[in-house]
């Protein structure tokens, strides 16, 4: 039976999901909501979560010594190695269970990381962990930049967005490079479950977390995590912006499972990509450019083509897993 909201509400009215109050993330930040969703589903399904976290907003704001906003086992090691660290924890569990030195519990090994620790510096350890087939889920909270240190560009920053290391200046128009497609990179490892999730679609979110937890191998969940501060949106707009991202095809909701593609949300009507850009202050300079229309048209063509490709892939790979 799929996880539903009322079940969760009744279970967690007094129960602690694993992340607590008192963390110092910005008001309205998407990251703690993502952590809360994932942990609630895990606990609801009877798992005991053990969390690894890469350096970044979520890590720094939840663990300022001597405070910790985690009431479950948690490890932060360094920026680029949460996947390797969790590999070690998961392997330790296998070893200790085999040797009967720990009671056999139903653990969920969950690595959280931002786009910094995933697309860029963390991609090697992510790739290695997936290739080795560890049983863990990797939750990417993608706020499209190194936000903890004040909005520096990452491989996930979309072109035209303002960041301090790729600013919009008199000469250069912000980030010139395109945004990497991390889910496709992970899908390239073939023997994996990878999906995009949005806070604006909670049922889809819960289903995918459940699938990831139950998947017999590594699972990768990419969640768009609006950064109210550096995307320059009002504090209360994180969910609205997530919704816009899905409706404009900027963040299509789909999953990949061992070669099979499935588009899990097919909105009946779409909004133009311009609406997504207009809603955020980080694109203001882009939109003020004289060639703004051309840039927007190109971006629209891209999201349209990418959507079409997903539909084609869904059709072509239906019931045809390769692993």
């Amino acid at each position, binding site marked *: 039976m799929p996880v539903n909201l009322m079940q969760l509400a009744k279970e967690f009215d007094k129960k602690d999901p694993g992340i607590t109050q008192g963390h110092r993330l910005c008001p309205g930040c998407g990251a703690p909501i993502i952590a809360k969703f994932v942990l609630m589903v895990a606990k609801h399904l009877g798992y*005991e979560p*053990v969390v*690894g976290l890469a350096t970044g907003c979520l*890590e*720094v704001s939840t*663990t*300022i*010594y*001597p405070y*910790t906003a*985690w*009431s*479950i*086992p*948690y*490890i*932060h*090691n*360094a920026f*680029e*190695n949460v996947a*390797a*660290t*969790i*590999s*070690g*924890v998961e*392997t*330790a*569990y*296998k*070893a*200790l269970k*085999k*040797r009967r*030195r*720990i009671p056999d*519990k139903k*653990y969920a090994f969950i690595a959280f990381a931002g786009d910094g620790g995933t697309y860029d510096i963390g991609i*090697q*350890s992510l*790739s*290695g962990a997936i*290739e*080795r087939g560890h049983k863990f889920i990797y939750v990417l909270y993608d706020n499209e930049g190194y936000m903890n240190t004040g909005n520096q560009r990452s491989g996930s920053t979309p072109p035209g967005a303002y960041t301090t290391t790729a600013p919009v200046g008199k000469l250069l128009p912000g980030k010139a490079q395109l945004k990497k497609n991390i889910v496709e990179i992970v899908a390239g490892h073939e023997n994996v479950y990878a999906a995009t999730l949005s806070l604006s679609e909670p049922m889809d979110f819960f289903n995918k977390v459940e699938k990831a937890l139950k998947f017999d191998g590594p699972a990768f969940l990419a969640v768009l995590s609006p950064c109210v501060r550096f995307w320059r949106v009002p504090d209360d707009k994180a969910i609205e912006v997530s919704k816009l991202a899905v409706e404009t095809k900027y963040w299509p909701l789909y999953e990949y499972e061992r070669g099979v593609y499935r588009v899990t949300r097919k909105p009946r009507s779409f909004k133009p990509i311009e609406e997504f850009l207009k809603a955020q202050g980080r694109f203001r300079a882009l939109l003020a450019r004289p060639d703004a229309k051309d840039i927007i048209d190109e971006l629209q063509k891209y999201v349209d083509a990418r959507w079409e490709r997903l539909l084609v892939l869904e059709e072509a790979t239906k019931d045809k897993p390769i692993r």
Partner: protein
Amino acid sequence: MEKVYEKKAITGAEAVAYAMKQINPDVVAAYPITPQTPIVEYFAKFVADGEVDTEMIPVESEHSAMSAVVGAAAAGARAMTATSANGLALMHEIVYIAASTRLPIVMPVVNRALSAPINIHCDHSDAMAERDSGWIQFYVENNQEAYDLTILAVKLAEHEDVRLPVMVNLDGFIISHGVEPVELYPDDLVKEFVGEPKPLYPLLDTEHPVTYGPLDLYDYYFEHKRQQIEAMDNVKKIFPKVAEEFEKTFGKRYDFVEQYKLDDADYVMVALGSTNSTVKYVVDWLREEGFKVGLLKVWMFRPFPKEQIQSILVGRKGVVVLDRSASFGAEPPLYEAIKSALYEAAVRPALGSYIYGLGGRDIKAEEIRKAFEDAINGNLIVDEQRFLGLRE
């Protein structure tokens, strides 16, 4: 009566792998790099043949090797890895994290020169770059010591008043690939000596959830580091006890340093690693000719056994220090440490520094003899950097 077990002619790498087999750690995560590779290969074969039931993680880099081992040790497992040179340099960031997180990891390091230029042969630049990391560091002379100290290291690392990771340094190719007879102990004896690990704050204990790796602002970092300093000081008290237990179990005596013919030695050479074997040969050679020379072999480099070294070297006529690494822009590490230890000595010996063997440059007995002769002839200049085996 001294116990003697069966000896086998094996390489240092095989000896270390054999020690790891007998330790049978919960988790090993290792990435191959010459000349450490045979250790990983032997161990992988043990795993494949079911001779150990260790979970082995074929990580994709040394950085991930140390990261995975940190995760495993934090989870409550006994975890080991091994590396050399640039592999050690690559994991440098996590090496510090392992020590600061007080995880009792044991890592044999097969010493090889750091790039550039790339060189796969022996020198101590790799381990010297980690001397401030907070790891306990041993340097071994031969295959037997590599085997012994890998076993001893587990007990030392996991001691409740220590809880620090240990690096066992063995010279690349010379020890790792050279064949020597090694006395191998029975499995059950090793198993009994290392005992069962007793993790502190295991992540997998969901009844007592802990947070590892928080953010320390300027209000707490200093205090956490002071704790590490205390732990290193404790090693000086705990190691003799562990060494004593090692002797009782296996019949071999280890210490902070080994004293070779030092009782009446006027001129002492100090060195780390396999070169000590050659120095012993030269000491014997010179003694036959009537010279009162001796060797102070340093086993434990971190924590630095200052007190022992002070008491041994004070009053000698000349001390010659051999360093197999350079600290560019300053005096080489072992020399600097020895000189500093002798600062307050009432009678300071003449001191001389010799850098040798970088990038695997062979060190000949004649060259070592020349260094001794410099001491004997009163030809030591404390601030002059000398080299053995370098082409001018």
